[in-house]
């Protein structure tokens, strides 16, 4: 691999950003990411935007941000999926040798539409969509299968909520930060059994941007970069139809992780210092531990209870507060990459983990119930 992330930025995630439209949010993170990299827009030779037409309520939604992301008269195309997938596409462009610097920018405004109707729109229009199933309902079905298969309790899931909302207290960009107990989670409003309000990520507004550069570009430019190297990246898609899937497990994550670890020459979980995972719901974080091989299948809750994934544990997960604390759909995965970069650079701020972070995992999902997974291995060294 010969590509690095040289600039990152994301804005404060909030329930309803009434000050900025999507282009204004994108301009903010684009200029901040450029400043972070010490680059100017003329240094960027191509742009990948990440957005979703349903959330934006318009087609060709990338053109709504054309000026804001500085893509005028440049090669720009859009990934409609999670930001990690946009970053993967940006990385592919760099590795093709045809591009030196890619800006990847993602935006989402959950506040402008009806979450249930938008996420209902991702399902098959003949056999699933007419039933009104949405992101929350499908997640509840998956949570129940996972719990039933491995004997996981609602209290076990609550521990994820306690950890991540607690971590968010130290992240000024998180939307929902609070000191809560398992009892509070259990007492929170029932939404779709077994999921309660505190098991579920919020609706959020926000944007995020990263700048990828080739090694050649970094060599040829005198700026003092603080590069985070991409040593492995892979993605894999499971069946789209929930009726065809083993919902208690994440085989697509397993495959993506194995491939990414192989590329990065990661031989053991011990070599991973930190992870930022796409925990849209509490149960997902436990399933993703298992899919990534952090612990054996079905042992996610035990792994969490061991303390390993706490901010001061041996493998902190979602020190930022994770997606549970702010869920800007499609930007959320890119934020996981950004948070992992900041931790590697030692610049995460108050939620910076104490130990040195040499290798970090950033993970994103796309599709219902974690259908597709994208895994990045990010490192201090090339």
């Amino acid at each position, binding site marked *: 691999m010969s590509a690095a992330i040289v600039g990152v930025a994301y804005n404060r995630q909030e329930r309803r950003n*009434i*000050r900025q439209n999507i282009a204004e949010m994108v301009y903010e993170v684009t200029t901040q990411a450029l400043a972070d990299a010490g680059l100017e827009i003329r240094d960027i030779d191509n742009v990948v935007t990440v957005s979703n037409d349903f959330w934006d*309520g318009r087609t060709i939604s990338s053109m709504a941000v054309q000026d804001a992301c500085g893509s005028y008269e440049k090669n720009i195309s859009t990934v409609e999926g999670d930001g990690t997938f946009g970053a993967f596409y940006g990385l592919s462009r760099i590795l093709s040798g045809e591009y030196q610097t890619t800006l990847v920018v993602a935006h989402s405004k959950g506040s402008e539409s*009806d979450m*249930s*109707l938008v996420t*209902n729109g991702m399902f098959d*229009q*003949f*056999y*699933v*969509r*007419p*039933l*009104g*199933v*949405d992101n929350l*309902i499908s997640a*509840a*079905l*998956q949570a*129940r*299968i996972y719990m*039933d298969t491995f004997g996981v309790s609602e209290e076990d899931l609550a521990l994820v909520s306690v950890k991540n909302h607690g971590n968010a207290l130290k992240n000024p960009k998180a939307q929902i930060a609070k000191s809560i107990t398992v009892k509070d989670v259990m007492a929170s*409003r*029932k*939404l*779709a*059994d*077994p*999921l309660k309000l505190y098991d579920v990520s919020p609706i959020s507004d926000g944007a995020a941007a990263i700048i990828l550069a080739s090694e050649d570009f970094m060599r040829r430019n005198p700026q003092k970069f603080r590069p985070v190297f991409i040593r492995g990246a892979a993605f894999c898609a499971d*069946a789209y*139809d*929930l*009726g*065809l899937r083993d*919902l208690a497990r994440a085989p697509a994550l397993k495959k993506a992780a194995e491939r990414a670890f192989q590329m990065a020459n990661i031989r053991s979980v011990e070599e991973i210092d930190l992870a930022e995972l796409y925990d849209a719901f509490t149960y997902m974080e436990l399933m993703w531990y298992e899919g990534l091989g952090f612990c054996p299948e079905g042992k996610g809750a035990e792994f969490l209870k061991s303390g390993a994934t706490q901010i001061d544990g041996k493998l902190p997960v979602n020190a930022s507060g994770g997606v549970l604390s702010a869920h800007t759909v499609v930007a959320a995965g890119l934020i996981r990459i950004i948070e992992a970069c900041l931790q590697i650079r030692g610049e995460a701020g108050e939620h910076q983990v104490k130990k040195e972070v040499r290798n970090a995992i950033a993970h994103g999902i796309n599709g219902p119930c974690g259908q597709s997974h994208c895994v990045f291995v990010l490192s201090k060294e090339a």
Partner: protein
Amino acid sequence: MITEENKQGLFFMHSGDASQPYRYTVGTWGSKFLTELRDHKQFYGIRCPKCKKVYVPVRQVCGPCFTEMTELVPVSAEGKIVSYTILRFQFLDPETGERKPIPYGYGIFRLDGADTNFQHFIAVPEDESRLFIGARVRAVFREERRGSLRDILHFELVAD
């Protein structure tokens, strides 16, 4: 009406009341599936000639085998619960635009004779503990059927 945002000098624009309707082509196999449901309250699956898996609802291609399927096989309107959830909040029914009454159930079912799972509503019994993974269920059909998934009213527990 002056909103809080207006007072701050910020404005919103509503997308308006016009809807964006589509006429989706159900396709060859899906049309047969819906015809049988409408006319005979009969579920059909489609079998992969390679892996022999029976898919319900039907589709043209077996994804893992990348093989075209053409053999329709009848499957039961009864099966068992693979997973379920009980909705405690109201949301818009995309078919009617109305808010769904709560609580109501949503389930994934494995029909007898099928190798894949089928999703639909599940009637929530007075005693909610009677719902569990593995419980036997059957489809309840509407009196008036028009060739849509909603010709099935919901699934209900089979009294034991």
